[in-house]
C-alpha cells in the first residue's frame, strides 16, 4: 500500500483526535490529506514524533495518533520502552515502514534487511502490537480509536511519496493553532 493512501485512510476515520506526524514527506502527505489544526506537523528533530505524542497523551485527555517512519523510529528505539512503561490508553502509534529514508533519496534502513520494528516494539514491553495488511487497515484503526486497542500498528508501505511541497505554515503557527484547538478538550 502507498503511504499517502494509508494516511488518507486514517484521516478519513478521524474526528477531533490529535495527530503527530513525522517530518518530511509523511507530514506533507498528511497536510495534503486535509489540513487540520489538531495536526502537529514535525519539521525537524527526527525521532521525536513518539515522545511528543507520549507527552501529549499523558497531559490531556484527547486521543493521540502518532505517525512514525522506520528511519525515525530507529533513531529513538528507547522511546518504545518508555511508551510501554507509561502505558497511556489514549495513544495509537502507527509505524509506516517503507524500509528507507524517503526524504533524503530512499537510502535503505535496517528494516529493509534485518530489523523488525513490530518485534522490537513487543520486546520493549508493548502488549498490543499488530502488523497490518491493507485490507485490515480501516478496521484496526477504527478499533483502536473506539476501544484503545491495538495500541501499535506496524504497516509495511511501498516506497514513494505524494508530495515534495513544503507545508506552507511557520513552526510557531503550527504550535499556536494546535494548542488553541486542543485546549478546548475533546
Amino acid at each position, binding site marked *: 500500500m502507498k503511504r499517502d493512501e494509508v494516511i488518507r485512510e486514517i484521516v478519513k476515520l478521524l474526528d477531533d483526535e490529535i495527530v503527530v506526524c513525522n517530518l518530511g514527506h509523511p507530514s506533507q502527505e498528511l497536510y495534503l490529506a486535509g489540513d487540520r489544526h489538531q495536526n502537529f506537523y514535525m*519539521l525537524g528533530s527526527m525521532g521525536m514524533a513518539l*515522545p*511528543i505524542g507520549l*507527552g501529549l497523551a*499523558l*497531559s*490531556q485527555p484527547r486521543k493521540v495518533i502518532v505517525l512514525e517512519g522506520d528511519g525515525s523510529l530507529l533513531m529513538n528505539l528507547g522511546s518504545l520502552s*518508555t511508551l510501554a512503561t507509561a502505558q497511556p490508553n489514549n495513544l495509537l502509534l502507527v509505524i509506516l515502514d517503507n524500509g528507507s529514508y524517503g526524504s533524503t533519496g530512499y537510502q535503505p534502513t535496517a528494516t529493509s534487511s534485518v530489523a523488525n520494528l513490530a518485534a522490537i516494539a513487543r520486546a520493549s514491553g508493548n502488549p498490543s502490537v499488530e502488523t497490518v495488511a491493507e485490507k485490515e487497515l480501516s478496521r484496526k484503526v477504527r478499533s483502536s480509536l473506539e476501544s484503545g486497542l491495538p495500541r501499535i500498528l506496524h504497516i509495511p508501505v511501498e516506497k514513494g511519496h505524494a508530495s515534495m511541497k513544503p507545508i506552507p505554515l511557520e513552526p510557531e503557527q503550527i*504550535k499556536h493553532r494546535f494548542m488553541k484547538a*486542543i485546549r478546548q478538550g475533546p
Partner: protein
Amino acid sequence: MEQTQDITVEAVLSFLEQLGLDPIITLPCNYTAPLLNSLAGRSRWTVIPCSREEEGVGIACGAYLGGKRPAMIFQSSGLGNASNALASLSGLYRIPAVMLISQRGTFGETIQAQQPMGRLAPSFLKCLGIPFYEILSPRDMESVVEPVETNLARCMSSALLFPISYWTSEG
C-alpha cells in the same frame, strides 16, 4: 507539604511548586537521587523517567503542547544527547524547556569522563541561546523563580546548573 531534613532538596521542590512545574521528566544522577526520590514520593508531581535526554525533550515539548508546564532533571552529559531536539524542536517551535541540570565535572567530581560535557555545559547552552543560571546554594533557587517565569512567558527555555557542591551547601 511534608518537609525532609534536606534543604537542598526542599529548595528545588519549592521552586517547582512556585512555578507550577509538572510533569517532571527525569534521568538519574547520584547527586539528584535524593531529589528524585522525594519527587517520586509526593503525589503532587507526575514523574516520567525516560531513556535518553533527547527523548525527554520530546516528551516535555508534548506535555507543553498539551497545556502543562514540564521540567526536566538530568546530568550535563545529557545536554549533548538533547541538543538537536533543543534546537530543532524546542527552539524552532519556541516550546520552552525548563531544565535542571546536574553539572558534573565540577569540584568534587570523581569520574573523569564527566568532565568534557560538564565543562562544556555553559558554552553549549550559550550556543543554543538558552539562558542559564548557576545554582550554588538553596537561596539561589528563590532568586531564579522570577527569571524562569519571565522566560516561560516569552517561550524561552531556561537551564539551572547545579554543580556538585550545591548538594552539600547550606542555606
